[in-house]
């Protein structure tokens, strides 16, 4: 048979000229997808699911790590009752709530102002927008170390700046006073967190159609009215996202406290994250610490739920 001729019963132009039937696949598409996803599934299970389940187990047992002869003991809800009746826990919760409230409100306010400024036209706007990201890109520990030097009572930049500009005639020990120290930690946190807020707002501002402002101008609205009745309502959805993200972020604050104050003076800056770390990793009470983490998760969920309910009600534009 000359080359190039086909068998008499083969159908010309048939999609499967060899057999007339579709070839048997090695595996189904779903199965193939599963194998491709397997490494990710294993990683997610190993790094998220397993620790998650183990932490639930931990919250109901006392591992007795410093008393190995006792072995792990099931203690039921003891860790939860202990933590909810512990005054140091509630004190750290108070600090955390204050920290979260001031940090979230101030970062949203400063972020909004900065985004409005960066949304207007001025020279070197591109450079300013790029520089904005620098504090946000720096790691929390490095941020803490930078602020440790800024706030150093004897050699710090802040004291030098304030005395040289005549704001004060003496150096201030920023982190020695319980009230002052917590607020200075918030300032350090604000420096790192507001760029993210500004960036998100900037993106949202750029998506607002200019026609709305022009129409408002025709109707006689001034700039403030334009901001009040156009900008703010259209920023509400992103504000909800920011509120949720920033609240979760602030509630979990740890690195800054660890580097700057270690919870002092007199536990004035001991946030709940640091308290639970101390109980878990310094005193080897992992069960108590795990239970505390779930209590915190519960509080965060309640807050997020309230945000969503509140903002959804006003979301009628």
């Amino acid at each position: 048979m000359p080359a190039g001729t086909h068998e008499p019963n083969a159908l010309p132009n048939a999609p499967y000229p060899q057999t007339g039937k579709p070839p048997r696949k090695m595996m189904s598409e779903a199965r193939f997808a599963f194998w491709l996803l397997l490494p990710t599934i294993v990683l997610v299970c190993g790094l998220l699911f397993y620790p998650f389940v183990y932490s639930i187990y931990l919250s109901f047992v006392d591992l007795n790590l410093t008393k190995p002869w006792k072995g792990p003991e099931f203690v039921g809800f003891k860790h939860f009752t202990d933590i909810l009746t512990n005054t140091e826990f509630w004190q750290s919760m108070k600090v955390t709530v204050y920290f979260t409230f001031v940090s979230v409100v101030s970062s949203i306010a400063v972020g909004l102002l900065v985004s409005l400024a960066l949304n207007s036209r001025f020279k070197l706007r591109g450079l300013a927008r790029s520089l904005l990201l620098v504090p946000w890109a720096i790691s929390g520990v490095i941020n803490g170390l930078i602020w440790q030097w800024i706030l150093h009572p004897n050699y710090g930049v802040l004291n030098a700046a304030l005395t040289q500009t005549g704001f004060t005639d003496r150096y201030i020990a920023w982190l020695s006073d319980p009230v002052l120290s917590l607020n200075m930690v918030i300032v350090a946190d604000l420096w790192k967190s507001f760029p993210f807020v500004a960036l998100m707002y900037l993106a949202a501002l750029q998506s607002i159609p200019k026609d709305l402002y022009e129409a408002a101008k025709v109707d006689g609205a001034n700039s403030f009215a334009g901001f009040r009745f156009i900008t703010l309502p259209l920023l509400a959805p992103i504000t909800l996202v920011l509120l949720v993200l920033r609240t979760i972020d602030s509630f979990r604050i740890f690195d800054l406290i660890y580097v700057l104050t270690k919870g002092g003076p007199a536990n004035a800056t001991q946030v709940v994250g640091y308290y639970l770390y101390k109980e878990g990793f310094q005193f080897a009470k992992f069960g108590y610490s795990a239970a505390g983490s779930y209590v915190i998760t519960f509080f965060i969920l309640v807050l997020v739920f309230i945000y969503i309910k509140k903002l959804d009600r006003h979301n009628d534009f």
Partner: protein
Amino acid sequence: MKRKLVSDLLLLLFAFTLLSACSGQGAQPAGSVGEGGDKETEQPEAKPADDKPFAGVVLRTISGPDETGYWGKLNKEFEDKTGIKIEVDTVPYGQQQQKLVNSFLSGGSTYDLFVMDVIDLPQYVEAGWVEPVDQWIQEEWKTDLLPFAQSAVVYKDKWYGLPWASEWKSFVYNKEMLKKAGYDRPPANWDDFIKVSKELQDKGIVKYASTWSWLQGEALICDFVAIAASKGAVFFDDSGQPKFNDEKSVEALQMMVDMLHKYKIVDPASLTFSESNVSNAMQAGDIAFELSWGIPQVGLNDEKQSKVVGQTEVARMPYSVKAATISGPMAYSISSGSKNKEAAWEYIKFLAGPDGAKRAAVENGVFPGWKSVIGSTEVKAAIPGLEELLEQGETAVNRPQVPWYHEWSSMMQVELQNALTQKKSPKQALDDAMDKTLKLMKENE
């Protein structure tokens, strides 16, 4: 289809189990060869020579930064001599204890050797994390150990290592500054200390006469124990009952509060300062008095880091009832989970035995815990102001030795700072500390 699903799930489970096994979780029995993710101590591969029975063994230890290069030199020498390689996990100061405890909790095989602070000894022994070394202790060593160095090494009549850095805090003053203020000797009691401090400040010689390490940390406990002891206070009586809210302790804390807020002779930044901040201030010539660990004049007379070379002296800390200071001896010990305990002992002997301790004192300024070493002429020549330091060392007192020390200390730090920041009166702070201590004792019965 169902069979496929089951096989997929089984494979998933297998992969997951493999991953979990690699995480190195869970304690391993001492002496067993672990399969976890912890870096295991390597076993010798080839048969070692008779004079180097442990050749090829790798020992792991944890330590702060080797700033002087002393450790690198020493470890190389030890390796040449014995064939044992020392791997050091270098961590920042203050993170050693926590990393060490985490290693114990995962079986204790991560580190073969470690430096153990006197306050950690009871907890480590009770938890079974540290190996007793009585079998290797030479008879003459038992009488050669300095009494307070012994507290870091011996617990319930068993030895748990050899003394390393048997330190206490010494009172240091700047004699040039005092001379300018018209004084030719340091203050002997607390009233004098306050008076001289005020004069130094009034004459503009210093902004604050002293800085202390009163941050919310262990350093605060050390300073308070020393000051309270100088007022005649005792923290725990002989039967182990806490006594630290008595009149003498309250008086000591009240004095600390007054020095900060009433007389204003202590830098308020002390509430955030650790020992290194205090040393830096003394070396910079910012203050006239400090309480410092070890051999303070090594750093103070080093031109590279000090502006007060030759200006400082050591004296007894001022006192009202009896001379006192705080001790903080440490031991070099072996982890119970180590696979190479005998090789580890060789290293400890080399490093902290009387010969090693003498070398550490002469070359690295580490205070020895052996009487014979302190008495040697080389050490006497190498340590500046040794007589004064020893005089101070004789008055050193210890912190409470209890297995729940870290929890107690953490609570106590907060109560002391409550008084120092004037959130509570000294009496109230110490009464509250007493209540919490009794609760802690009950929980740990």
